[in-house]
Structure formats: C-alpha cells, structure tokens
C-alpha cells in the first residue's frame, strides 16, 4: 500500500466515519430504544436515553460534517458523484437528521413537570419524543442504503443516454435488495451499540438488565442481518462477493469481526459490561473497515479511486495540517466532555 497525502486524507475520512458510527450511531440507536421502550420501566428507559445523549449528541453529529467537508475538499469528484446519484436517499436522510435533532431538543425543552401546564407539556413532550424516535429509525436505514449503493459499485457515471432515464440513474442504483440489507444492518448495529452503552449508563440494576436483554437480542439480530447482507452480496453483487471472500487480509478481518462479536455476546452474558462495550465498538468498527478494505483503492467503485479522485496535492497537505491543528483543540475537548458526563456512574 503506497501511502501519500491522498491515502492519509482517505484514512482521516474513515476515522471520522468510524467515530460518527460509534458515537453518533449510538445516539440514533438510543432513539430506536426510545421508540421500542416497553415494560414496567418504560418511562425510566426513555429518561435514561435522554440523559445519556443530551449533552453529547451535537458533538457526535459533527463527525458527519467533517466527513462531508473532507470529501468535498479533497475528493471533490466523489462528493459530486454521490450528491448527484444519491440525491433522493441523501435528501431523505437529511430530513431524518433535521427531525431527529430538532425534535430531541424540543422534547428536552419541555422537560419533566411544568406546574399547572404539566398535562399539556407532557403531551407535547410525548409528541416530540415520537418524532425523535421515528427519525432515529429512518436516518440510519438511509445512511446504510447509501453505503450499500457505494459498496455495490452501482453509482457509475451515466452512459451515452446521460441523465435522462430518471429511474435508471436516480433510483435503481440505490434501491436494491443489497442496499436495503445494508440499511437494516446499520440500524441493527446502531441499536446494538446503544443498548450496550446504556448498560453502563444505568445505575439501577433492573434498568441495566432491560438494556442487557436488548443488547443480547440485537447482537443476535446483527448476525442475521450481517449474513443476510453477505448472502445478497454473494448472490447479486459480484464485485463485493469477490472482495469479501478473496485474500487472506479479508478473511483475517472477518475472523477478527467474528471474534469481537462473540466476545461482546459472552461479556454481556456474564455481565462484564465494560468489556462488552469495548468488544461491541470493535465489532462495528471492524465491519466498517471490512467494507473500506473490500473496496480499496476505490472510493466509489467502479471508477473513482483514492488517487484518481484526489484534489491537488497542496490542498491535501493543507487540509492534513488543518486536521492536525484542529485535532489538537478537538481531542482534549472531547475527552473533557466525555469525562464530565460519562465518568461517575459507569458500572463494572
């Protein structure tokens, strides 16, 4: 692997995407569990989720902005291709992002108990809670669909017909069984991450058990969704199938992913929640990296490579310096944020 500025920036994009999935993804997963809150501790499940994501979701969301900005600055033709051909799912995803964030802040605004208006405030709060939760389901699905379309290599430049055939150009490339399966996998993984993280947020053992159960169920579902996506790839996406099954590197990565997944399940089973969090995060990160490795050196198969799509060298070098400078401010701040909000009631 020849590493120069283009590869370094592509690596930075992968790191940012990983952070978005592990942190922002779990916030969406929290919304999923808000939607599916049930049992005697329904209200307390929701309160725990709100408390866990309240202070951090906006910071976690910024990773997505970093990905977008790095793409359009350093791989502008990739950004243009995705923006044109994924116009519809990206627009729908944006609606999800807007509704999730606004509805969450509206709901937080009402907060618990407002004296004489408690009744109507509770109703308003419940209304925005539903919007927040539904948007948290839809957004990861669409994000996954977009990733699936990139991985499948269907986002080719239009041929001689140009952009005239609407369905063939703007719908068919992403609305595929494989794309949908990646959407479902993304949703399940986000819900899985959230459930695992919430076992460490909960102070009350009963509440912790609620999320342990949810984590175990979604861990199982993740296996089903992952093998479903793999099956569809083998059946209908030859490019993906070759990359996923060929080569010792791909197989080693699969083995590591499987090991992380099993570790997460075992740790949840024996209530080793810190280990479970580590293993779950590793599992999801490895799936993401498996995708990246499978399509290396392409950013958008079948034609846009890291080298081929890279901006002029001076832009890449300046952006890398900006990343270093920004990181010097960002990482200490981020660590401080997480220490303040995630330290005291961490369980075992």
């Amino acid at each position, binding site marked *: 692997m020849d590493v120069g500025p283009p590869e370094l920036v592509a690596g930075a994009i992968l790191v940012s995407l990983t952070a978005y999935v592990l942190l922002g993804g779990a916030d969406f997963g929290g919304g999923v569990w808000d939607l599916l809150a049930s049992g005697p501790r329904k209200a307390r499940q929701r309160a725990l989720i709100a408390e866990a994501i309240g202070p951090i979701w*906006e910071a976690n969301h910024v990773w997505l902005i970093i990905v977008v900005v790095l793409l*359009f600055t350093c791989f502008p033709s990739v950004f*243009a291709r995705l923006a044109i051909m994924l116009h519809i799912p990206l627009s729908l995803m944006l609606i999800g992002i807007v509704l999730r*964030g606004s509805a969450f802040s509206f709901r937080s605004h009402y907060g618990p108990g407002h004296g004489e208006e408690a009744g109507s405030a509770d109703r308003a709060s419940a209304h925005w809670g539903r919007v927040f939760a539904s948007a948290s389901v839809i957004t990861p699905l669409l994000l996954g669909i977009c990733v699936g379309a990139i991985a499948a290599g269907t986002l080719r430049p239009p041929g001689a017909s140009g*952009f005239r055939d609407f369905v063939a150009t703007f719908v068919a490339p992403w609305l595929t069984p494989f794309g949908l399966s990646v959407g479902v996998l993304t949703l399940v993984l986000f819900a899985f991450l959230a459930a695992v993280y919430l076992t460490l947020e909960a102070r009350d053992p009963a509440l912790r058990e609620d999320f342990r159960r949810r984590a175990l169920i979604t861990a199982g579902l993740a296996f089903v969704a992952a093998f479903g996506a793999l099956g569809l790839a083998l059946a209908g996406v030859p490019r993906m199938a070759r990359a996923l099954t060929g080569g010792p590197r791909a197989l080693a990565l699969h083995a590591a992913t499987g090991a992380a997944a099993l570790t997460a399940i075992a740790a949840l089973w024996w209530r080793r929640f810190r280990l479970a969090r580590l293993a779950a995060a590793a599992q999801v990160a490895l799936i993401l990296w498996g995708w990246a490795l499978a399509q290396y050196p392409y950013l958008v198969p079948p034609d846009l490579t890291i080298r081929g799509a890279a901006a002029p060298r001076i*832009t890449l070098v300046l*952006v890398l310096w900006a990343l270093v400078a920004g990181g010097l401010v960002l990482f200490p701040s981020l660590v401080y944020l997480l220490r303040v909000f995630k330290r005291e009631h961490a369980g075992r």
Partner: protein
Amino acid sequence: MSDLIAARSQMAMSLGFHIIFAVVGIGMPLLMVLAERRWQRTGDRIYLELAHRWAKGTAILFAVGAVSGTVLSFELGLLWPTFMEHAGPMIGLPFSLEGFAFFTEAIFLGLYLYAWERISPRAHLAAGWAVAVSGMLSALFVVIANAWMNAPVGFRWVDGRGVDIDPIAAVMTPAAPIQVIHMILTAYAATGLVVAGIHAAGLLRQPRNAFHRRALAVALLVGAPAAVLQPIVGDQAARFVARSQPVKLAALEAHFETQRGAPLHIGGWPDEAAGQTRWALRIPYGLSLLAFKDPHAEVKGLLDFPRADWPPVAVVHVAFQVMVALGSFMALVSAVALWLTWRRRDLTRHRWLLRALVLAAPMGFICTEAGWVVTEVGRQPWIIQGVMRTAEAVTPMPGLIVPFLVFTALYIGLGLVVAWLLHREIVRSPQAAEEDAA
C-alpha cells in the same frame, strides 16, 4: 418552475432559514456568558436566572442551527455538484476549519447546558466563552468561503477547470475582511437588539421589573455598539463592491446609465425593460460620493454591461434599501441608548426609547435576510463571480421542485415550533422581581 429556479429557491430558503439560527448562535452565547459573569461578580441571582433562560433558548436555537447547517453542507453538492467539484479544492480549507470550530462549539455548549452542577463555576464560565468564541470563528470561516465566491482568487481558470490552485491565496480573498466583520457585527446587533426589544416591551408594562432591567442592560451591551458601528462597516463593504463587482453595485443602487457625478437613489422602482429607475428620491452626486469619495467620479451603470450579466435588479435594489433603512434606524436608536447610558440616565424613564427599541427588535433579522439577498442575488447570474454561472453548476437531477417544496414545508413547521417555544419562555418572565430606580 425550472429546475434551476427550484434549486436556487431551495438554496435561498435553506440559507435564509439557517442564517437566523447562525446569527443567534453567535450572539446568544455572548449574552449568556456576560450574564453569568455578572452573577459570579455580583452574586445577584437575577443574572443567574438570565443566564439559565438564555442558555435554554440557545439550546433549541443551536440544535436547529446545527441540523439546518448540516442540510446546507449537503445541499452544496445536492444542488450545485459542479460548483463543489471545482470549488472544493480551492475553498474547502476554511470549511474544514469551520468544521472544527463547530465541533468546539457543540462540545462546550453541551458542557455549558448540562454541567452547571458538575464542573467549577470558573470552568463553566470558560465553557461559555469557548462557545461564544467558536461561534464567532464559525462565522469567520464560512463567510470567508462566501467572500471568495464574490472575489475568487487563488487559481487560474483554463478550459473550464481550475489550475495552479493555491488555497492560501483563496482564503486571503480581498472581499473577506470587510464581509466577515459586517457579518459578525450583524450577529451581535441583531441578537442584542431583539433581546433588548423583548425586555423593553416588558419594561413598558412593568417599569420597575428588575429582571427586565438587567436583561435590557446586558442585551444593549452586546447589540448597541455593534449596531452603531455597522453603518460605517457597511459603507466600506459597499465601496469594496463598487470596485470589485460594479454590476452588483449598479443593481443595488438601481443605477442604469454610466455617468460622472451619479445621484444616489433612495427608494424607487427599477424598470429593467426601460432601463431607468422611477419614483426615486435623487440625491445629486450622492452615489459618486459614497462609492468613490469623489462627487465627480464615474459610476458604471447597468446598461454598460451585457444583459446576461445582470442580477435581478429590482430584488437587489429593494433588499439593499430595506437593509440600509432599517440598519440606520437600529444605529440611531442604539446611539441614543448608549449616549443616555453614558450620561447615567435611567433608560426606563424614556418610554419613547423603549418603544423605539421594541420597534427595532425584529429589524436586525430583516436586515440579515436583506443583506444576504444583496450579496447572493446580487452576485447572480454567477455562482463564482466571473468564472462559473449558476446555471452551469446545477445538478442534472430533474424534478427539483419536489425537494424545494418538501424542505420549505419542513422549515416552516420547524420555524413555527421554535417561535412558539420561545414565545412560551418570554411570556413566563418573572413578575415578582421589583426594585426602586437607582
């Protein structure tokens, strides 16, 4: 509606929506840290109450600003992929830095809003300052990118593509300094005066209400100096436009015929077909004097430029007039308020001033919108001035009226909810706190 018009409408609507929240996101953090600082210095609990309330409003406004800003970062590509494909490597650098400024803002706002009980008062106040400073830096970086679209530098355009790209030179675009200062002052003036207006209204009903008195003082501290400085900076900005974008200047002044000793048009309606401006008050030599500091300077008129290079003249002219008129009123009211404060007068005894402040409350936001119309519509038909036309940049995706209508409906809904929530907070201002006039 053509796809180009739909795309432009969606972009204009998205920017017009986001800019309100961006402006408030720069101004409100300053208000809340100033209030918290006074609480820490004086121990007066009313300031703490103010900091809490302003933080609560900021939480909603920042959230909506963050998500609508995300929409914009995607829309740059969803609507203008050809523009981003070329401009990305040239002007992406300030966007990257803006990403980090936004990150810092989000992190420390999370701390500010949720960590009152978890970190020391000193650390809490510092978090507030970090929010205020990074909000201002976000504006700096984004406006640099916009300034580059008005005065593009740092590349050579050869055969429809940029070569010899120099991102540092692009960031140094000569349009940036004045446009950035103009924008940041707008944020403080608009936010400060809208808050001042709300509490001035409270004081008209309850002149002794200490909560409103303290709030008015802090709000004017942020808004009034900025509003007073703004006309001076705005004049500089217009003079820069006169040199760098003469067509834009001619459009915003509704100036059709090139002439020496050009008059300034106040009001009036530009008739593009006839090539003249009707019903305007004409101030002889005014335009030459304002634009070039010389009453006999030649000012190029629209008729000297190809028709295909004109922006929509009437829209730009009206927006400019609105901005200047309302901005002048804000500056005047602010100057009076500052003068009275300096003379240690009790502002609340001057009910006419309170009424004027109430009147000025929404003006900062109207000016913000009008100013963006001036700079963005005024640059049309170019997306990169003189280099790439907006029509060349638009996505090949058909049916763009659909996303335009969907996002418009979404934003109208959000806008109404935010307005309702803020209204609810304002109505609940504390009634009890009363004090004697000092």
